[in-house]
């Protein structure tokens, strides 16, 4: 891909090896906490907020957003899966880690009931658990726990639709040797605001695979985080986003390698089109001194289809031990430009089909990672529709 960077974009990633520095996680304005009062109200200059248009958060960041219960959550689970609604005092709630920014802490401080989905140990599900989160125009603070027992295997699809102003925490507790795949689809109406922290606590020899698919929303800001509870854990974090005119879609990842012999692989790809489409990708990977034998790679690719879109892609890799298997990152933003269009059209391919060909090809390898046929199908349909809108 051409490594041309659209005007105004950043790809100022960094690799730091050893030396005195502030750890990635300490660059934020306050330490992690369950209490929103521990975080100052952000003003936009803070490292973790500098790309986010705060004025579009509808008060989620400054305490003015008040819950009015406008989000409906439904869980459809195959037999053997336990679905509960629990209070704040449930031991599992908050057990994967603390909220790391003000909005996540606001969600944690404000939710009343948490939804807990549990797959008992050694249970291998043949059907996905389906969680639908449908916004009905209101403000909501959510909390979801997904708990997979030792050696269990499950696929969970979380589908976000409708209009909402939602701040939430999602926790994945993955038992030893368990395998969890989560597909989170953000198919919101164009007016929705969705800010969420996803924290996965990966057990010994467990596998966590996350596929984030973001299409909708006025502002979507997701913060998938991975921590390892014991050696041998593996995390695969995939993401696709299609950012349209006026949308702000931000994916901030953090993989905390604090345990030996764990692996992580991150691949996010986004297509952008239209005026003021803004995608932000932050990929923070920290390999702490104790995490010998770590193997990690992260990649972000962006395809800019039209003028007027902006990408900020910032990979950060911080390595505190040399005793690792591998560590790398890559980020590139390319344009689908008039010359490419001319080339394809000069081979008889009509303009709209040329664009479709390029975008489908760009996303293909990640679409295959979803592994849930109806979601893949819907995604491809969605891509077609988005492209149709751009040609019109």
């Amino acid at each position, binding site marked *: 891909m051409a490594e041309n960077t659209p005007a105004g974009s950043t790809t100022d990633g960094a690799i730091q090896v050893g030396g005195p520095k502030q750890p990635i996680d300490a660059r934020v304005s306050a330490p992690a906490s369950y209490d929103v009062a521990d975080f100052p109200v952000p003003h936009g200059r803070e490292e973790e907020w500098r790309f986010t248009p705060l004025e579009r958060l509808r008060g989620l960041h400054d305490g003015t957003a008040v819950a009015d219960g406008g989000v409906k959550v439904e869980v459809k689970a195959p037999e053997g899966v336990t679905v509960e609604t629990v209070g704040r005092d449930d031991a599992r709630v908050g057990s994967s880690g603390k909220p790391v920014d003000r909005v996540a802490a606001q969600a944690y401080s404000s939710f009343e009931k948490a939804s807990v989905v549990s797959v008992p140990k050694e249970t291998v599900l043949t059907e996905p658990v389906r969680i639908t989160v449908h916004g009905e125009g209101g403000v909501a603070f959510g909390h979801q726990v997904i708990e997979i027992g030792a050696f269990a295997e499950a696929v969970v699809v979380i589908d976000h639709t409708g209009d909402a102003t939602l701040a939430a925490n999602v926790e994945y507790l993955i038992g030893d040797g368990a395998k969890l795949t989560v597909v989170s689809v953000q198919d919101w109406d164009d007016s929705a605001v969705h800010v969420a922290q996803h924290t996965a606590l990966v057990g010994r020899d467990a596998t966590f695979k996350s596929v984030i698919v973001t299409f909708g929303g006025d502002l979507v800001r997701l913060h998938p985080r991975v921590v390892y509870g014991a050696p041998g854990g593996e995390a695969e974090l995939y993401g696709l986003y299609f950012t349209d005119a006026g949308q702000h879609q931000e994916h901030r990842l953090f993989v905390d390698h604090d345990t030996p012999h764990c692996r992580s692989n991150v691949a996010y790809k986004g297509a952008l089109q239209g005026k003021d489409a803004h995608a932000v990708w932050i990929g923070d990977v920290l390999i702490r001194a104790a995490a010998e034998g770590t193997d990690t790679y992260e990649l972000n690719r962006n395809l800019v289809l039209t003028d007027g879109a902006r990408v900020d892609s910032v990979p950060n890799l911080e390595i505190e031990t040399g005793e690792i298997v591998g560590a790398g990152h890559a980020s590139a933003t390319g344009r689908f430009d008039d010359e490419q269009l001319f080339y394809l059209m000069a081979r008889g*391919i009509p303009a709209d089909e040329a664009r479709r060909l390029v975008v489908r090809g760009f996303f293909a390898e990640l679409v295959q990672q979803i592994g849930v046929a109806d979601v893949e199908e819907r995604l491809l349909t969605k891509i077609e529709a988005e492209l149709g809108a751009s040609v019109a």
Partner: protein
Amino acid sequence: MATLEIHDLHVSVEAENGPRDILKGVDLTVKQGETHAIMGPNGSGKSTLAYSLAGHPKYTITSGTVTLDGEDVLEMSVDERARAGVFLAMQYPVEVPGVSVSNFLRTSATAIRGEAPKLRTWVKEVKSAMEQLQMDPAFAERNVNEGFSGGEKKRHEILQLELLKPKIAILDETDSGLDVDALRQVSEGVNRVRETGEVGTLLITHYTRILRYIKPDFVHVFSNGRIVESGGAELADKLENEGYEAYQTKGGVTA
């Protein structure tokens, strides 16, 4: 028999200080089965002719006509021209991220032929065309022109020529940047297409080297935006010996 007729073609491009005339009255007729070499110094407008015929948006046709079997080519969009049978092998083919060669070739063949080629025969067709051009089968899985060497890009262009079977093939400096082996293989590909007798070829080149492999029926000398002399293959020999100086005495050619 397919005939491309170019009549009094004037073309300009948008430059810093307003439009600049590049083509200043080109007349040329190319018939199916014929091979025309267009030769000229850098900046004479050869490539502009090629891209104008294919419909590149950068070039503005200010006057003149181009018809293919009587149909107005200039009225057609870029993809319509290709489907009508005009093919341009580009000097600098662009990278297309995310699109594999095999997907690209099939999509393009489907567009040109009006229906998707039958999978079994198609796979064979592509495989044998690639073999003849000495292309590794793994090539088909790479993204279009991404990380291709100069030779690979030109082979890929000629592969498309062989598969798409146009009525009029315009080869823009296909010989540039090729070593002798690659030049021979690429030329053989062009000759296979020519031997069908179904294509009219417009071979645009700066050097006479490729004409040792691809014998033209006609040679035209291009200078300052028009054809200044036409002749048979012997004209190429004259150019080989004397260069372009004789044609550059007037007209302010700039590189």
